[in-house]
């Protein structure tokens, strides 16, 4: 049971700690259980019109002529807008980052002009008074087009004889990177064991249950308000200003409830700009809600990689070196503004990450192709790097005849070795691999499981146990985007205001998409100020009222946003005490705030409630000294600058049964030990970890955007694109090791993505362990029954 449970508490960070570290329910989520959420499609505005997009029906085409007359005659149609018209208000963009040396991409327009480069690229907007009218009208739009040859295969993109998708770029390579520690070849030459495999990762996507949606409202006074389900409202505000030449003071982005994000809603999509541009042209509110078919073709995809990997190990079971060659296809354009080279770059940084080997070589090619653009989706590179590393680790352990858990214990970077620089150059502040491995061994009762596996195998039942040790980058510094020129804030802020009755309003630049950010901010604020959590109101999502900040991505919400809340709350508490000290004629050091009241610190005697501090602070400042000004609103910001990233670590284990006759996999159980530093709310972290694991399992077993030979996605709907459902998923046991980061007072690291990072590696390793008696293995995700039967040579 996911019973609210408490962890052994670390030393408190606040004077009166009641909530941090506790499984406090998310009070703000009550309305979501009552059907009272407010998602974009729930909002109606006066004079609002609805847009639907005519999207490219093929992977690559020349746009010859757009005939609008028939569609303009349809009932309710207000406007039909093409790329040329939209380009009169919206500039094109090129998504590159300067710190990824040599990266290139081509200019991209909000609506395609002259040429469309993937099936689903928006070309023409049809705007009508109702959504139904817009959809009724769409088939009457007559676009004359000519199909062009499509570049789909990643290997072909590298061929010097291949068509070049953007001739002006010279080749089809968006980004390439090589890393070599120098002595790789001799390690492989002298190793007792060298194992290699080819790892394939199917392109998949996030499938947020709420599709991407937006209402753009450009008012006749020149002010733009965009209601958006988005993870980074300030980033979007900045982009709208730049692409439409508007002032920040005239652009407001507002996020209400967001129905799932997972990275899908952190990018700037062509139709985001188109919808805003249409509102500017029409000067009225325009609503766009993607339908599910559009979601599959226009939401970013991720993870299409083919990686050749090798591992070298000594006869004593010491890992000597890793080598990888990664090829990844990202669609026709690098995605704006975070770019599509980050995922591959992360793979290079992270392969071999948990281990202490000294030699590593990596080669990466990121290539263009005529498929939906890819970009950052939950885990970003980690699930790939982890599956490759852990797959190779298992191959080496098996060859050596060594237990895979024991092999990992021998090779992880020891807990006392930190700070440590990983072989790829990554800086690791402090990790706990050894503790995590011991804990998972105990949690899963590994020896008993091994016995069970052995006994069942004799009866022809093939069960497997798979491990995945992982590292995960969280709490990024400006090193992620800022240094590369992307205007995405790495810092976040919080403003806390005490109102006259003593309740507090906490506004934070990190928003809520379901993770529980607002819940943990309430916990932190309540403890930092010293008020009951019922007296805390949290507000996020509106660029007009929140401090400037980065938002939700790279597992930074709790660690960075939470630290800003902590600092603001502590500062407000000091200001409250200064007022109280005047009123009570005592010294600040003699007083404390708890449970909404000021107490004498030594005698623990209740002195005055915060409502009295508020009453005087706001209405009777005449009672305070002439030169003293009460400050009951405080803003603090925080940015992590000690390390490029604060890495977390963990280990997962999967227990599966493979039916060797049908290839079906039954997931029996999954365990995760996670070290995300200080756990602010164990219940929320546990369910973050579980949700992330299930998304990782989706990629490992089910999810893939399937394309035919013409570049048509053939399973772009919820019936054919498979995601994990409740009955296929196992119970997932989660445990924690808490190693706080010293880069902040709170000590919290990110927790939202590690589940996705480790699950595919653990599950695929478990499957391969189950079929190991047949001397076969498969590393081709999603590992479908067909692929298992093919590995077992049951089918061709």
């Amino acid at each position, binding site marked *: 049971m*996911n*019973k609210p449970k408490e962890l052994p508490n670390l030393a408190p960070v606040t004077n009166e700690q009641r909530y941090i570290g506790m499984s406090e329910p998310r009070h703000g989520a*009550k309305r979501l259980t009552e*059907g009272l*959420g407010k998602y974009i499609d729930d909002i109606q505005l006066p004079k609002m019109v609805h847009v639907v997009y005519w999207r490219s029906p093929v992977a690559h085409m020349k746009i010859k002529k757009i005939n609008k007359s028939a569609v303009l005659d349809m009932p309710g149609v207000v406007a039909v807008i093409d790329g040329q018209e939209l380009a009169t208000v919206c500039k094109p963009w090129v998504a590159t980052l300067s710190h990824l040396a040599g990266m290139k991409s081509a200019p991209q327009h909000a609506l395609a002009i002259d040429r469309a480069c993937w099936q689903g690229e928006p070309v023409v907007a049809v705007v009508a008074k109702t959504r139904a009218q817009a959809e009724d009208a769409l088939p009457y739009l007559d676009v004359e087009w000519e199909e062009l040859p499509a570049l789909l295969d990643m290997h072909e993109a590298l061929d010097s004889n291949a068509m070049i998708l953007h001739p002006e770029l010279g080749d089809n390579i968006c980004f390439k990177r090589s890393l070599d520690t120098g002595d790789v070849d001799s390690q492989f030459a002298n190793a007792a064991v060298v194992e290699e495999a080819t790892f394939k990762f199917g392109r998949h996507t996030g499938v947020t*249950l709420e599709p991407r949606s937006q209402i753009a409202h450009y008012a006749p006074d020149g002010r733009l308000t965009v209601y958006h389900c988005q993870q980074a409202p300030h980033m979007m505000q900045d982009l709208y200003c730049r692409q439409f030449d508007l002032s920040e003071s005239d652009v407001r982005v507002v996020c209400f409830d967001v*129905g799932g994000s997972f990275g899908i809603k952190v990018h700037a999509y062509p139709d985001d700009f188109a919808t805003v541009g249409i509102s500017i042209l029409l000067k009225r509110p325009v609503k766009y809600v993607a339908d599910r078919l559009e979601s599959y073709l226009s939401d970013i995809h991720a993870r299409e990689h083919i990686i050749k990997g090798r591992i070298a190990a000594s006869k004593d079971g010491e890992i000597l070196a890793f080598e990888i060659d990664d090829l990844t296809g990202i669609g026709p354009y690098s995605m704006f503004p975070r770019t599509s080279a980050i995922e591959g770059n992360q793979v290079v940084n992270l392969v071999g990450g948990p281990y202490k080997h000294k030699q590593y070589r990596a080669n990466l090619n990121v290539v263009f192709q005529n498929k939906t653009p890819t970009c950052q989706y939950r885990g970003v590179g980690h699930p790939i790097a982890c599956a490759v590393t852990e797959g190779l680790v298992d191959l080496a352990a098996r060859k050596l005849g060594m237990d895979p858990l024991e092999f990992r214990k021998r090779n992880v970077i020891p807990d006392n070795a930190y700070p440590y620089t990983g072989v790829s150059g990554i800086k690791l502040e402090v990790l706990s691999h050894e503790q995590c491995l011991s804990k998972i061994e105990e949690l899963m009762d590994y020896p008993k499981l091994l016995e069970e596996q052995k006994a069942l195998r004799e009866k022809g039942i093939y069960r497997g146990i798979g491990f995945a040790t992982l590292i995960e980058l969280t709490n990024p510094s400006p090193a992620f985007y800022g240094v590369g020129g992307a205007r995405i804030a790495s810092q976040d802020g919080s403003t806390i205001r005490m109102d006259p009755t003593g309740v507090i309003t906490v506004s934070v630049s990190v928003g809520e998409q379901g993770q529980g950010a607002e819940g943990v901010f309430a916990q932190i604020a309540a403890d930092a100020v010293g008020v009951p959590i019922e007296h805390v109101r949290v507000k996020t999502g509106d660029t007009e009222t929140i401090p400037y900040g980065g938002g939700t991505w790279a597992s930074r919400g709790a660690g960075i946003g939470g630290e800003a809340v902590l600092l603001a709350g502590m500062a407000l508490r000091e200001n409250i005490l200064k007022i109280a000290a005047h009123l009570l004629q005592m010294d600040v050091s003699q007083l404390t705030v708890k449970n909404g009241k000021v107490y004498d610190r030594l005698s623990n005697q209740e002195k005055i409630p915060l409502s009295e501090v508020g009453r005087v602070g706001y209405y009777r400042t005449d009672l305070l000294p002439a030169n003293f000004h009460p400050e009951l609103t405080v803003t603090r910001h925080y940015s992590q600058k000690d390390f490029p990233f604060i890495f977390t670590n963990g280990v997962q284990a999967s227990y599966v049964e493979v039916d060797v006759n049908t290839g079906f996999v039954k997931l029996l159980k999954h365990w995760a030990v996670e070290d995300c530093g200080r756990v602010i709310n164990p219940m929320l972290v546990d369910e973050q970890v579980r949700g992330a694991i299930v998304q990782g399992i989706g990629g490992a077993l089910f999810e893939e955007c399937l394309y035919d030979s013409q570049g048509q996605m053939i399973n772009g709907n919820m*019936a054919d694109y498979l995601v994990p459902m*409740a009955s296929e*998923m196992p119970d997932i046991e989660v445990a924690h090791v808490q190693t706080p980061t010293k880069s902040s007072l709170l000590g919290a690291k990110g927790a939202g993505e590690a589940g996705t990072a480790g699950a595919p590696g653990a599950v695929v390793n478990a499957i391969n362990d189950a079929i190991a008696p047949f001397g076969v293995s498969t590393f081709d995700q999603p590992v479908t029954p067909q692929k298992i039967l093919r590995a077992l040579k049951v089918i061709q």
Partner: protein
Amino acid sequence: MQTTSITMTLNGQKIQAEVEPRQHLVDFLREDQELTGSHLGCEQGACGACTVKLDGKIVRGCLVLAVQANGSTVETIEGITASGEYKDLQEAFLKFNALQCGFCTSGMLMAAVELIQTYKTATREEIREWISGNYCRCTGYHAIVDAISYVMEQRQQANK
């Protein structure tokens, strides 16, 4: 477009409305009746976010036309909330963090309500099977199973 007159008992209230014959029940509820608690995730009956009750049985609001509900009783999450009959279930979803973004929650609760009405007890596997028509992309399902299981146990004990 031509409209048809329909009547229904919606969350306990008798209503009369003019609808286009092609309008889906969930669009009628969301757009015409301003009951936005039922959500649209796929419009093809796959995701379950639009689950409502029609004459006592859960249906996909996107696969039923409003005209098909003529003369029927329709109940949505808003009606369930107002009745207070499943307050324990709604509270358990919070207590166990059985929701994250909340987009699936209304449909998930409607499915859970029918499970509780249909069976007195259910194993975790049976609960998982029952809610397998409802997508949740956030939670990993574990906490949803916990919450439903807890409510069924509590109700069992209360009836002893």
